[in-house]
């Protein structure tokens, strides 16, 4: 395919994904907005006022970057895993398989679609957080780069999950039993300085800790880890997952007989 045709194919996939999640906005856009508002009210306002400062900021200011990142991570992942698995389930994936779209464009289209939802939710949650606290940005490039790369990484994770899934249960196992615990233990609600030494070490093995802290550094200027190490780790994960996803597409794992 020529370059202009590839571009058309790419934005066709992206627009289709955006059309999908905006069509079912009560399932995709509304729930995270409601959930995050509850977090802000309960953890930020009610409980947070008794906790006091963390990392030199009031508790609400401390958790806002983590909550934004949590929303971006879960929605980037959820969009791709549910959309791609639905296409497999309904066999509408065949529309793509019979067409001349190269595998890398299929992957890029779905990842971008997942990022559109993840980042869109990120913007919604950020706007909602302004009703509860003031946000001043320490480093805009760090904020933008971290949130974009993290969103891309989890969209890739969702894609691999969808390729491997054979039934609907399989697309909820990873978000429920892997993603949610790692996110909650990834420093969204606390600084790992509060943990005993051993658990601080264990926490350093959690990749989400680096993403949350990289983003928190961008907004507040404080972090439990070196923010550039965070970016490096995200990039390495992206390269590895993209390679795995492309290999799966080439072999037709779960989509070709």
């Amino acid at each position, binding site marked *: 395919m020529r370059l202009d045709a590839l571009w058309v194919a790419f934005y066709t996939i992206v627009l289709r994904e955006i059309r999908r999640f905006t069509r079912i906005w009560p399932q995709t856009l509304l729930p995270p907005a409601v959930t995050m508002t509850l977090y802000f009210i309960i953890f930020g306002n009610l409980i947070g006022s008794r906790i006091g400062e963390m990392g030199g900021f009031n508790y609400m200011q401390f958790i806002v970057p983590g909550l934004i990142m949590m929303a971006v991570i879960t929605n980037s992942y959820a969009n791709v895993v549910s959309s791609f698995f639905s*296409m497999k389930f309904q066999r509408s994936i065949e529309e793509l398989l*019979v067409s001349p779209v190269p595998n890398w464009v299929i992957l890029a289209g779905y990842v971008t679609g997942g990022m559109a939802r993840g980042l869109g939710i990120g913007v919604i949650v950020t706007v909602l957080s302004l009703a509860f606290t003031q946000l001043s940005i320490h480093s805009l490039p760090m904020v933008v780069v971290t949130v974009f790369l993290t969103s891309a990484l989890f969209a890739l994770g969702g894609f691999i999950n969808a390729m491997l899934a054979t039934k609907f249960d399989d697309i909820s196992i990873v978000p429920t039993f892997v993603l949610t615990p790692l996110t909650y233990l990834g420093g969204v609600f606390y600084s790992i300085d509060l943990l005993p030494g051993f658990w601080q070490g264990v926490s350093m093995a959690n990749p989400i800790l680096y993403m949350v802290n990289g983003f928190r550094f961008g907004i507040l200027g404080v972090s439990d880890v070196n923010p550039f190490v965070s970016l490096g780790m995200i990039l390495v994960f992206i390269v590895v997952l993209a390679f795995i996803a492309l290999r799966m597409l080439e072999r037709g794992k779960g989509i070709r*007989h």
Partner: protein
Amino acid sequence: MTNALEIEGLTKTYGDGFQALKGIDLHVREGDFFALLGPNGAGKSTTLGIVCSLVNKTAGKVRVFGHDIDTNLADAKLNLGVVPQEFNFNQFEKVFDIVTTQAGYYGIPLGRASDSAEKYLKKLGLWDKRNTPARMLSGGMKRRLMIARALVHEPKLLILDEPTAGVDIELRRSMWTFLEEMNREGTTIILTTHYLEEAEALCRNIAIIDHGKILRHTSKRDLLQQLSVETFILDTEKELSGAPELEGVTCRINDEGALEVDVEKGQGLNTVFVQLEELGIKVVSMRTKANRLEELFIRMVAENAAEARKNMEGVA
């Protein structure tokens, strides 16, 4: 004339060890209307699935308008339109979006895609339903939607896997007319069907596949010439209570109350008419029974099954 499709030594063994294709060779000329016939599980859908990249082949060569799917898959796909057996679109999307999105996958920008979608949705009587979610369409409309989707990028080769399955007779006839028109305009068509009447009415060349092997690959005319008996349907002035006894032919009353007469090739119908006149039976019209191909098909598949059984016994 170039070949629209060339298949050489194609084999497919599934993960469970089942050998669906045992080295088939096939060619379809450009402009042809070609039928791939076979009983359930014969290997028809596997063959077409490989051509359309929905199934990975085990070995062999496939070329679409000369483009090898191993070395030039994108160009092969650009020439192909596919109408699968099962509905495979997103049931929640609107008809127009389904067709224009498919065009986008072929690199056609939205403006041109919209024009092409309008053209084919109008031709297939779906334009009024363009803003309807696909799940709200009737079965026949869904089949037509898949045809419009397959044609939106104007492929030179259209592959249809049982396109009229579960479609009522009126719609089936209108789809035949549409496909014949497409073929006249230059589109090469390959179809699989269980309705042998369909293959007989539409196709010029036919391959019969069974147990992963091509049993026959020839023109419809050659195939039909092998028939030793031809069946004629005679409509009589008065309805007959039973089949008359006629010398030299076998006859019966069919479901419509007409007289069906089996005549040996070369025997002629004169003796039949003479005998009927003697019996006071007046014939008002006559036609050939359309499903002659069905008889041949059943015979070939039965012969193949018998041969397979014999080979199995030999092995045992």
